């Protein structure tokens, strides 16, 4: 496999629109889907160059989603940790409660352009499902969301929200009943209904052009954050930290800083409950290159190439592979990838809630956990920007179950 990857890298270089990030990415799908991916790529290439498309997207970002989102100096949190100044990019304040809406609005405009009327999506935590159901209501598309039955249990509130918005939520009971299995089922639907249906994939995963296209719809996060921090502090941050499930919020905030070599980029994966295969979703710690669901990237798998099951307290990070551009950022050394455990994420959730009055999504709490580890070791003149990719309202049931404040004899922190 080594020679395969090296030869492709030489042949194609690191030009994103080849569908390759170094050796990673590509288009590994059954033939039935190839024509649809080519159609999507063409539609996206045309749309990118179309000023009218960009204007409509900007209008929706601003007036529908609520962009730009604030960059907040987390004063009490910074003070309590000691060390660096921590800023929070408030994607949690967006309509529907997470960054996911950026991508959904972009793809919805593309669906309209391609003349399709049926949209399918997968969802883990339910945030992408809610955002998809939302844009489908806005544009008048039929909407079917596939969701693992385990995730439906964990995120019952979001299931109800999707149904309120007029979407059909189909439970997926195969495999580990989580995000990976929901993507499998969405791909099966797409293979069957490809002529009339658009697959609104929710992360920088899957076959080309998804990793590039979804990234581009989220790059606004980093563009805003970079301008905002320069305005507030007149200098760039030392670190930008974001959680990495598939990797859409992190790639969105990282991208504007890629050329700023002084800015460290840190992706935080789900460390789960232990370092054993099956107990976490830290692809860069336990995984190796492989192909899953259309793309070549780091994958948690066994020796024979069977995909491993994963675990995380946050459904949105509970996935055995990672966006191919992250794999390349990791190998090239431009970004660093670490993990935070379930427990660390739960503590970080409470920390931010009690220091700043902001309840982050359990996914985003992984990024907060890393900031809490690093900031005390940094100078007061250092700046850390953390992407709060989503809000934690959806996680209240899980937090209640895990933290048991209301159990007899429980210690309230």
């Amino acid at each position, binding site marked *: 496999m080594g020679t*395969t990857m090296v030869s492709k890298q030489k042949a194609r270089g690191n030009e994103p629109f080849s569908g390759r990030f170094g050796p990673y990415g590509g288009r590994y799908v059954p033939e039935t889907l190839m024509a649809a991916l080519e159609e999507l790529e063409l539609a996206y290439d045309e749309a990118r160059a179309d000023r009218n498309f960009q204007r409509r997207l900007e209008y929706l970002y601003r007036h529908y989603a609520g962009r730009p989102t604030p960059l907040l100096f987390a004063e009490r949190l910074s003070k309590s940790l000691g060390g660096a100044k921590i800023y929070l990019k408030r994607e949690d304040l967006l309509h529907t409660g997470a960054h996911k809406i950026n991508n959904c609005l972009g793809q919805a405009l593309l669906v309209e352009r391609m003349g399709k009327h049926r949209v399918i999506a997968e969802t883990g935590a339910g945030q992408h499902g809610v955002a998809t159901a939302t844009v489908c209501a806005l544009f008048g598309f039929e909407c079917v969301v596939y969701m693992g039955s385990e995730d439906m249990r964990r995120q019952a509130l979001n299931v109800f929200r999707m149904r309120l918005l007029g979407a059909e939520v189909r439970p997926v009971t195969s495999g580990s009943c989580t995000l990976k299995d929901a993507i499998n089922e969405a791909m099966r639907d797409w293979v069957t209904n490809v002529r009339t249906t658009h697959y609104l994939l929710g992360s920088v995963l899957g076959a080309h052009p998804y990793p590039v296209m979804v990234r581009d719809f989220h790059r606004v996060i980093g563009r805003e954050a970079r301008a905002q921090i320069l305005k507030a502090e007149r200098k760039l941050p030392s670190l930008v930290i974001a959680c990495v499930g598939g990797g859409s919020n992190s790639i969105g905030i990282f991208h504007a800083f890629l050329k700023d070599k002084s800015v460290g980029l840190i992706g935080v994966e789900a460390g789960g409950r232990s370092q054993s295969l099956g107990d976490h979703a830290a692809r860069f710690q336990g995984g190796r290159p492989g192909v899953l669901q259309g793309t070549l990237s780091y994958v948690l798998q066994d020796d024979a190439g069977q995909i491993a099951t994963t675990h995380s307290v946050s459904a949105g990070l509970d996935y055995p592979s990672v966006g191919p551009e992250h794999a390349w950022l990791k190998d090239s050394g431009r970004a660093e990838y670490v993990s935070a455990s379930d427990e660390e994420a739960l503590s970080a959730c409470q920390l931010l809630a009690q220091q700043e009055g902001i309840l982050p999504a359990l996914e985003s709490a992984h990024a907060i956990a890393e900031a809490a580890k690093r900031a005390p070791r940094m100078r007061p003149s250092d700046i850390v920007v953390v992407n709060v990719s989503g809000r934690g309202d959806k996680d209240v049931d899980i937090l209640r179950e895990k933290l048991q404040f209301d159990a007899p004899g429980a210690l309230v922190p």
Partner: protein
Amino acid sequence: MAIAFQTRPALVAYVTCGDPDLTTTRNVILAAFDAGAEIIELGVPFSDPVADGRVIQRASDRALGRGTTLKKVLELAADIRRRSQAGLIIFSYLNPILQMGFRRFAQAAAQAGVDGALVTDLPVEEADDYLHEMRMRRLSTIFLAAPTSTDQRLEKIAQSANGFVYAVSRTGVTGAQERLLDDARQLVIRLRRFSRLPIAVGFGISTPAQFVGVGEFAEAAVVGSAIVETIEQNPGREPEAVREFINRLFLARPPSSAKMV
């Protein structure tokens, strides 16, 4: 290097290896050859079979539960090769082959006496290194052609294919379907403009009538889920049940077809 089918339509039979165990798979395959199947697709079970319907998903889960791996499937192929000279094709998703390495896979396949392979999620654009290793060992490389494939894509597929071309009868995953032959016929007509290889039509063919219908416009029919389901529903007598199933398919064939070359 076209595969020469002996009857029309020839039967290409798919089995998920290791379901319910590898010994049963071997006996099923030998029974299928004995009943007249010309090629067996040795299905390598995969944890995430995105192109497969419920029946093969269930079979894959059972086979993985028994610890079936690509390596063991290749050992099974070698075992069958010692007992039969009929066609053997490895049918797999990409990742197990990628983890073994294209070179090691091609070496092992050639050594086992396998005739070729089909990799479901490896489209021709991504197949250069794979093709190189397979061709060096004169192994057939079978690719899927779909009703949604453009003429441009069919041309590329025809250029990379070897042995036969697998025409997917309809959009969708594997599994039985009532009406499907119109799409398939159109696809086969388009494919013939680009390829002189024999064409096998598959996905959803389960009844004797469908099987014979395919023979009107293609050289071979692939039957997969219906055979896997027969195995599932006949615990303890899988080889006999598959043999009976194949006999029923062949009974529907016109009497002269068996002599066609």
